[in-house]
Each structure stands twice: as structure tokens, then as C-alpha cells.
């Protein structure tokens, strides 16, 4: 019966779009999650998504038709700044992330509150923060942008896979042996910003970290090579996103929260599996 119901839903193009975009974005987020989690930058996703939220507030006040054109460059600049702040500055990386994160979130809300003409402000903010239905209301152009950027992110990760591993495992060694780490770090920062802006459509600002962190940490319960963890994280992310979107359509729950709930569930399943495998 549920299958029948799903069949009907799949007749609608917006459901198909949501699934395609959702899977691609979740896939990109989990790929980057591997390097972010292992470099102890788990919260950068959170910080950057709040930056994107602040910029979106400004864009909506300025009545920009395509807010992504403003969001992307600003988020990229912040990503580069935050990732390079990790070393050699007076303010520590995690404190910098926290500052930028809450600073932009508060400013964004303040701007929306003061200047937005829309009567349903609370609803708008809630949608942006939790991404309740955004993924189901994507316009065709947004779908193409999301698909294009996701493919770009995946391609960059595949091409630079070995570099990403080396820099994540031991940046000093890479620098010492003459690898151009600065360039690769810059590329990684840009790609991270891309993923964050994309993921805002899927789960909303507050829940982005889930897409970045859960797949990797879950995969690490079961596998011990970098390659296996990466592959497993991607599969984990795809399955939990598909389940999340389907369940939310059938049960009428908010998409973002349902996906994250699936991530949490998956994590506990992997923990249990890991426990039994170690015992065996």
C-alpha cells in the first residue's frame, strides 16, 4: 500500500527533483565530512551555514532574485578565512568558528526582523533554519544549479582524493616534502562552502552538521581504512537521505529533521554492529 502511495508521489516532478538533489547534496556533504571530521573541523559546517543564513537575510532584504549569487562568494571567503585561522593566529580556530557562527546568525535574524516586509517572518526563519519544505519547492533552475555543483564537488574530491588523504593525515609532512598544500587547502575550503550553500536547501541551516558528521563517524565504527570509511560514509548518507525524504513524504514530517533522524538511527545501528564485530 505504501508502495502504491509512493508510486503516485513519484508522478510529481518535484518529488523526483527532491530525491535527486537530496542524494547528490548528501553525497557531497559526506565526502567532505571525511576530511572535516578527521581534521577536527566538524563544526565548520555549522559556522558556515550560519554565515550563509546571514547573507541570505541581506539578500532577501535587498530583494535579490537569486540569493545564491551573493551567498556563494561570501561563504567561500569565510570558509577560506576559517580554515586558515586554524594555525598561527591569536584567536583559536574553534573560538573563531563560534564567533562567526552566532554573530552572523544573530545579525541575519536582526536584519530580517527589521527590514523584511513579509508578514510570515517566523515561518520564513523556521524554514531557513530547519529547511522544512524547501527541498520540495525547488525551481527548475535551482535543481540544475544543485546538480551541477554537486557533480563538481564530487569530481573535485575524486581528482584530489590522494591529496585530501595526505593533507588530512599529516599536513606538515606534505608541506615538508614539497606538496603545494596551500592550493589544495584553498580548493577544499571553496568546495566546503559550495556544499554548505547547497545543503541549506536540503536540511536547513541548523542541521547541516548532521550531513557532514554522522556518515563519517558511523563509518568509522566499522572500517579502518580511509578508502573504506569514505565509501561507507557515502553509502550511509545516500541511504539515510532517501529514507528520510520518502518517510517525510508519506508521513508528512519535515524533510530536514527526518533525514537527520535517519542519520542518528543509522549511527546507533553502526555502533551496535561495530560492538558485535569487535566482540566476535
Amino acid at each position, binding site marked *: 500500500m505504501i508502495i502504491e502511495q509512493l508510486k503516485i508521489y513519484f508522478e510529481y516532478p518535484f518529488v523526483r527533483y527532491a530525491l535527486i538533489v537530496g542524494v547528490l547534496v548528501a553525497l557531497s556533504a559526506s565526502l567532505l565530512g571525511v576530511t572535516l571530521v*578527521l581534521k*577536527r573541523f566538524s563544526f565548520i559546517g555549522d559556522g558556515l551555514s550560519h554565515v550563509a543564513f546571514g547573507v541570505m537575510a541581506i539578500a532577501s532584504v535587498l530583494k535579490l532574485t537569486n540569493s545564491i549569487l551573493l551567498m556563494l562568494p561570501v561563504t567561500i571567503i569565510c570558509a577560506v578565512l576559517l580554515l586558515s585561522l586554524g594555525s598561527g593566529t591569536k584567536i583559536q580556530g574553534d573560538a573563531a568558528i563560534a564567533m562567526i557562527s552566532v554573530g552572523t546568525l544573530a545579525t541575519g535574524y536582526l536584519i530580517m526582523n527589521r527590514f523584511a516586509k513579509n508578514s510570515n517572518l517566523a515561518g520564513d526563519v523556521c524554514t531557513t533554519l530547519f529547511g522544512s519544505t524547501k527541498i520540495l519547492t525547488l525551481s527548475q533552475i535551482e535543481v540544475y544549479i544543485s546538480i551541477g555543483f554537486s557533480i563538481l564537488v564530487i569530481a573535485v574530491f*575524486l*581528482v*584530489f*582524493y*590522494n*591529496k585530501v*588523504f*595526505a593533507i*588530512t*593525515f*599529516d*599536513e*606538515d*609532512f*606534505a*608541506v*615538508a*616534502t*614539497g*606538496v603545494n598544500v596551500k592550493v589544495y587547502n584553498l580548493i577544499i575550503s571553496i568546495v566546503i562552502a559550495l556544499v554548505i550553500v547547497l545543503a541549506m536547501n536540503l536540511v536547513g541551516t541548523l542541521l547541516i552538521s548532521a550531513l557532514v558528521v554522522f556518515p563519517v563517524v558511523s*563509518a*568509522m565504527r566499522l*572500517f*579502518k*581504512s*580511509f*578508502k*573504506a*570509511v569514505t565509501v561507507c560514509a557515502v553509502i550511509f548518507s545516500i541511504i539515510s537521505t532517501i529514507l528520510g525524504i520518502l518517510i517525510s513524504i508519506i508521513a508528512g514530517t519535515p524533510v530536514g529533521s527526518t533525514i537527520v533522524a535517519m542519520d542518528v538511527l543509522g549511527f546507533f545501528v553502526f555502533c551496535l554492529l561495530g560492538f558485535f564485530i569487535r566482540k566476535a
Partner: protein
Amino acid sequence: MFQLSCENLVLGYEGRVVINNLSFRVTAGDYLCIVGENGSGKTTLMKTILGLKTAMSGHIELGPDITTKDFGYLPQQISAQQDFPATVKEVVLSGCLNHSGLRPFYTKADRQLAETSMVKLSISGIASHRFAELSGGQQQRALLARALCATQKILLLDEPVSGLDMKTTADTYDIVAELNKEGTTIIMISHDINMAVQYASHILYVIGPEAVYFGSTKDFLSSNVAANLSPGGKGF
């Protein structure tokens, strides 16, 4: 021919000078041991040579046929976290990165080099083990194999035996001596002066910011520095 030349180097951090006006040269095939007390700036010197830190002043010149890609490095500590998922093979292979340019994948030759390095350090049996689960000695061997993948020309080793038991320590020194015999230039930090005079061809002794001894091991042994150091002041 010289591979590395440091002239009038001033090293330090946060405005405090730890080594002042240091000059020395390293020639192909040398085995240079950098010795000195903890905190005397040995690691800072090595990181400056590798470009991980900048000197307060002075010059570091590389030999005519040397680039930064000819350095292999064995750090004292790895910053990667304890549960990092990486097999020994993945770690060793990552040493090949510096000569792979923009190529996205490792070549057959790279994989062969990684294999040879692991055989040389007798860790091919644990190639698929997780790096983080290895013992200290095994981790050092894996990291040394990685350094060998990066280069066979110059190896910089920062206290490669710290925290190892006596047997593993002796093994490590033998491996390094063997590499040096095969033509690899060695620059090693150590606080074990007895070992240094036994293996090294040159000694760089950091006594204090203003007092650094540099010379061949033979000269070092007949110098006042060595006489003051050895038990009873009678020399080694």
C-alpha cells in the same frame, strides 16, 4: 657537492632567540646528528629547514640539484587523531604524493616503491593494519617507509627513537645507517650523544643560543665540547 647550506640563521619564537647565528653545510652522503638539551631549538631548526617555520633572519640555500621535493621527513609526533582510519599501506603510499603532480591516482611505479619501502622496513606483513593501532616502533617504521617514498636523497628525522624500547631503538639506528650507506643523506635529531658519535659523520651540538658546535665527528671528539661532556671529562 653541497645539498643544504645554512648561513647566519637566527631561530626563535615569539621574539625569543633560541639559536643565534648558525652556519653549517650538508654534503651528499653526510650523516648529520643534531644534539642538544630539550628546548634548545633542535626541532625548530629542522622545521625551518623544511619550510614549516620561518627563520628570524639568515639564509637557507639548497644545492643545485635539490628542491623541497627531495626532503623526506619523519616527524616526532603525528597530529592525526588516535582513531584516524588509515591503513599502513595508505600512509606509506601517501609519501609518493610529492612527485605525482596533478595526477589524480598513484602509478604502478608508486605502488611498487611503497611495496619496496615496506619490505625494507619489514612492515609488509602489517600493510592492511590500521596505523593508529600499531605499536610506537611499528608506527615509526611506517612513517619512515613513507619518508622513503617521498625521496631517497635527504631524510630528516626528528628523534626517531623517542619512546621506543632498546631493541627497537637499535634496529632503527641500524636501518638509518643502512640507508645512509646506500647514499641517502641523513639529518637526525637525537639527545643520545653516545649514539650520535657512533653513527654520525657530522655533529651539530646546540649548547646554548650563542654556542653551537658544528664539525665532523672526528673533530668533535677531540674538541673541548666533547671533553666537557663525557663522564669524568676524559672524552669518549
